[in-house]
């Protein structure tokens, strides 16, 4: 019931093509009634502004993707103001807008400076006025920065549009599977391939400083955990014990990893100190224990265990403490990902044969199914807790979908061959 009311804006990311510089396409598939109407007026341009997507277009797309805003198409605007004196609030009110963003871009040498102002239409007030500069080659970062500022000025929550995504694409090349670990902007643009392999790559996990990824690679014929420094491309094989080496999760201080190892017979969660490489057992049970993730305190952890007979979500107050079962709503709940406030935990939830993303309110225990797609996997929460990305199936292909964290729905779009999976939302980095 609540499920059907939760129709908010969603954006579907699909792999555009299998070419080397493949980009994810974002299409808004559903808008929310509750979304705030905002007019992002195309910025005036002084001097030579680099070609490509306009800054205001990128800002519009960011705000729409959040599901919390609905932008006015520029073709419907009655005027195109770029500063306070040109804004006629009556016009924007008539167009049903709550907010108006105006600004201009100025080129000087290798830099472009944006000057922008955000207005509350009802109160006829300026609520944000700033200047920001970026190298002329980096207009996308400038645009995402403006989106973050606008989002924060209106919602009071830090924007996450300047963050990165890691994900794995799969296609075939010369008759063999080709897995590629890629990192892109949060809107799927500026994708760069970080690792290519004929063997599966799984579970990318961002270090808290955003400089490294931990992941599982089968390149040696079995699951092994690597660390990968993004700036240099330097890779370190960090866990190669007999059996499974999987499901890496960073601690807040970046000094240790939770991981699943089966070196002692069956899948248990361990904590590895990255300096000494020593591992200590966190769980000890004959059941499968895996998919660990630290909670918002950084002291406790969530994980998946089938100790009750099927996979369910458990929480430990500290490594080794008595686990408390969190999920009871169905016989399959796995891969927990908590928010950073201790309010919700998100996970994969089976209901009537289909796999959805659900969340449980940790205070009330109430469970809400958030998606209407059927084969959902790998939920990853944005660092500000407001959005969620996950992988789902379209025929034989896998696609990524972004929803707002309180729910949403996405419809199938045609995808290219192969697909994209295992999304990991990067941290907020200053």
């Amino acid at each position, binding site marked *: 019931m609540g499920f059907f009311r939760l129709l908010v804006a969603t954006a579907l990311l699909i792999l555009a093509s299998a070419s080397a510089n493949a980009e994810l396409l974002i299409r808004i598939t559903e808008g929310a009634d509750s979304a705030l109407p905002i007019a992002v007026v195309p910025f005036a341009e002084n001097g030579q502004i680099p070609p490509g997507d306009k800054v205001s277009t990128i800002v519009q797309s960011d705000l729409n993707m959040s599901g919390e805003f609905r932008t006015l198409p520029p073709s419907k605007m009655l005027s195109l103001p770029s500063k306070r004196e040109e804004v006629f609030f009556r016009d924007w009110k008539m167009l049903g807008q709550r907010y108006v963003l105006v600004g201009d871009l100025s080129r000087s040498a290798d830099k472009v400076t944006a000057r922008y102002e955000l207005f509350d239409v009802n109160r006829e007030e300026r609520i944000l006025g700033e200047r920001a500069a970026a190298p002329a080659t980096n207009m996308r970062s400038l645009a995402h920065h403006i989106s973050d500022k606008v989002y924060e000025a209106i919602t009071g929550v830090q924007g996450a549009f300047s963050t990165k995504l890691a994900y794995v694409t799969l296609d075939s090349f010369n008759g063999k599977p080709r897995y590629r670990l890629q990192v892109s902007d949060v809107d799927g643009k500026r994708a760069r391939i970080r690792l290519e392999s004929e063997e599966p790559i799984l579970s990318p996990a961002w270090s808290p400083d955003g400089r490294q990824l931990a992941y599982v690679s089968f390149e040696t014929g079995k699951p092994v955990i690597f660390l990968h420094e993004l700036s240099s491309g330097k890779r370190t094989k960090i866990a190669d014990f007999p059996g499974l080496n999987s499901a890496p999760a960073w601690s807040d201080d970046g000094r240790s990893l939770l991981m699943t190892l089966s070196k002692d017979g069956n899948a248990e969660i361990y904590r590895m100190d990255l300096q000494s490489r020593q591992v200590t057992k966190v769980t000890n049970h004959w059941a499968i224990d895996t998919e660990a993730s630290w909670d918002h305190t950084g002291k406790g952890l969530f994980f998946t265990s*089938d100790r009750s007979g099927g996979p369910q979500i458990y929480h430990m107050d500290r490594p080794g403490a008595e686990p408390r079962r969190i999920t009871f709503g169905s016989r399959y709940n796995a891969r927990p990902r908590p928010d950073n406030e201790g309010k919700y935990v998100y996970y994969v939830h089976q209901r009537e044969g289909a796999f959805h993303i659900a969340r449980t309110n940790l205070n009330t225990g109430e469970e809400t199914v958030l998606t209407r797609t059927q084969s959902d996997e790998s939920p990853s929460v944005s660092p500000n807790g407001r959005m969620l990305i996950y992988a789902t199936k379209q025929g034989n292909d896998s696609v990524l979908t972004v929803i707002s964290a309180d729910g949403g729905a996405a419809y199938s779009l045609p995808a290219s061959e192969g697909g994209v999976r295992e999304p990991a939302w990067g941290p907020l980095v200053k």
Partner: protein
Amino acid sequence: MMFSAKTKAFALLLTVGLFAGCSSTGETVEDGTYGSDVAAIDQDGGSTVYGGDDQGGISSSSLTEEERMAAQQQAAQEALRDITTFYFDFDTAEIKQDARDVLVAHAQFLAANPGQTVRLEGHADERGTKEYNLALGERRANAVQRFLIVNGASRGQIETVSYGEEKPAVMGSTESAMAQNRRVELVFE
């Protein structure tokens, strides 16, 4: 200790007979774990000793007859060993009844050929999460490994690896495709 080929063949025959008898009792495993299975098989493995005790009273003429039967059995076992993929139900690692005779044949083959090694590749279908499926694939491979060891193979001959849901045998999300993907493959090297 050395046993003659005759003794081995006879023991093998008895083992197979006992297994057939055992499977018909159809013990249900309540909690869906493989632990109970292995315990049941352990008992069967122990009972082959009783075949050795009997041996003293057997006349040479009947041994010849048994030899003939054992040879037939041998051929049957070889035919069984053509089957190298074993299937599982969703989210279980329970070895199915119809897989047992075949796995016993593989175990006996490994026991008779100590230089032979085998890799057990565990897989899951696409449903559920990738990491849990990785552990599930391993649990399936481990269940087959235990079964082989209990039935005569030695630990050093067996290597296990799990691919989780990453290497489906059949593409697609139909029930039949997924049933073919929940499997352990024996790869002899």
